[in-house]
């Protein structure tokens, strides 16, 4: 659907000077606080050459400001963030994904929670675009990871209208709100990759958006599946958790060494989910009294009356726990606690 003229990007004359354009960007709050690449007409045109659809096509309306994310507006934010033009289809798919009602973008954008949007790219495009799935995959250093995550943040801020302190009400926020993007390591992977698990073909390329509260590293030299599952489950158990209160969707980035321990023990991905779900149940009495009331409001229909000794599962079903395999060698995995009132959404990338 083509957006009406009122929802199309404006153009204006600006000095051919990087410092002047960045001053303008600061004044108009177009940036995340870092310098931007000037979105000149020529750069936006180069980006749009990879769109595979009309520049004025409306991809989504983005809460909380309900700005219309046209292909052109997405492209402008991609330029601002420093993306290569070939990255644009990933951002078009990610923009459609965050607008899916299951993702609950209004809450994610406007909450006091620090939730960031984590992008996971699967399929052949991840390697073609050199999206890092190995060493330091959620750290610095890879152009695609850095600029794709940054571009989505600028889309959410500039089109969705979630400016910090205004419609973005995050109490602290988190570093992942600058950028949070990786690929899955489909080469060193003992099971089906995420997109295949979610019903896509292995040859498809997809992007998954996750409402991520942060990252908690788990360095463990555990060598048996039982021990590894136990220490991961004990990391999940924390009383001030949106997931236990609402019944969430916790995510894990398993290092390939940890994934291999589970595989050698004969556990497939679903068996790992069931083990973590069972081991991470938390007695209701560990929550604060107010959180117990909140949990009762959210979870009584699912679990019945919550008594002090009721064991609270982190998610309604074991299958709600989500696992990807990524990172380099090492005895590390990452727990990614999530927003709670949100479900990840995966979209195929049109290439």
């Amino acid at each position, binding site marked *: 659907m083509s957006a009406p003229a009122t929802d199309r990007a404006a153009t204006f004359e600006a000095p051919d000077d990087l410092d002047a354009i960045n001053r303008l960007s600061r004044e108009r709050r177009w940036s995340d606080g870092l310098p931007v690449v000037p979105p000149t007409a020529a750069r936006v045109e180069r980006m749009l050459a990879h769109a595979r659809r009309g520049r004025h096509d409306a991809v989504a309306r983005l809460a909380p*400001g309900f700005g219309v994310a046209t292909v052109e507006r997405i492209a402008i934010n991609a330029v601002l963030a420093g993306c290569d033009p070939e990255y644009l289809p990933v951002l078009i798919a990610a923009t459609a994904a965050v607008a899916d009602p299951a993702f609950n973008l209004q809450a994610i954008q406007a909450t*006091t929670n620090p939730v960031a949007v984590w992008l996971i790219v699967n399929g052949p495009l991840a390697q073609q675009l050199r999206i890092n799935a190995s060493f330091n995959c959620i750290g610095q250093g890879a152009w695609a990871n850095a600029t794709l995550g940054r571009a989505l943040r600028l889309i959410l801020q500039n089109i969705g209208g979630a400016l910090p302190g205004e419609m973005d009400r995050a109490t602290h926020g988190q570093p992942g709100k600058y950028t949070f993007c990786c690929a899955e390591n489909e080469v060193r992977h003992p099971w089906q990759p995420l997109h295949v698990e979610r019903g896509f073909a292995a040859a498809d390329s997809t992007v998954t958006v996750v409402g991520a509260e942060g990252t908690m590293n788990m360095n463990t030299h555990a060598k048996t599946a039982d021990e590894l599952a136990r220490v991961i489950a004990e990391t999940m158990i924390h009383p001030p958790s949106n997931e236990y209160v609402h019944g969430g969707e916790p995510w894990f980035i398993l290092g390939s060494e940890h994934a291999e321990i589970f595989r050698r023990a004969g556990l497939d991905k679903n068996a790992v989910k069931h083990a973590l779900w069972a081991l991470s149940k938390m007695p209701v009495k560990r929550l604060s009294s107010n959180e117990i009331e909140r949990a009762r409001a959210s979870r009584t229909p699912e679990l019945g009356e919550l008594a002090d000794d009721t064991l609270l599962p982190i998610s309604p079903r074991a299958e709600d726990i989500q696992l990807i395999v990524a990172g380099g060698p090492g005895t590390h995995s990452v727990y990614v606690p999530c927003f709670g009132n949100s479900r990840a959404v995966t979209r195929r990338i049109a290439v």
Partner: protein
Amino acid sequence: MAKHGKVAITVCSTAFLTLGRAQARALGIADLPIAVIPHPFGGRRREEIRRIADQCADDIVQLVTGAG
């Protein structure tokens, strides 16, 4: 609802008033009446909630009737 000529009032806590005003502007209803309650709202005693609700009800009446 406001755009369809119905009386519409939003109730929000002080911490979210900026959001409420900004979102109303973004949705083209900048003059949306907003009744404001103290933040945080959760964890208050029942009698406090009743007092806040009584005040809020008065505020809503004033916003609807234009009184005060």
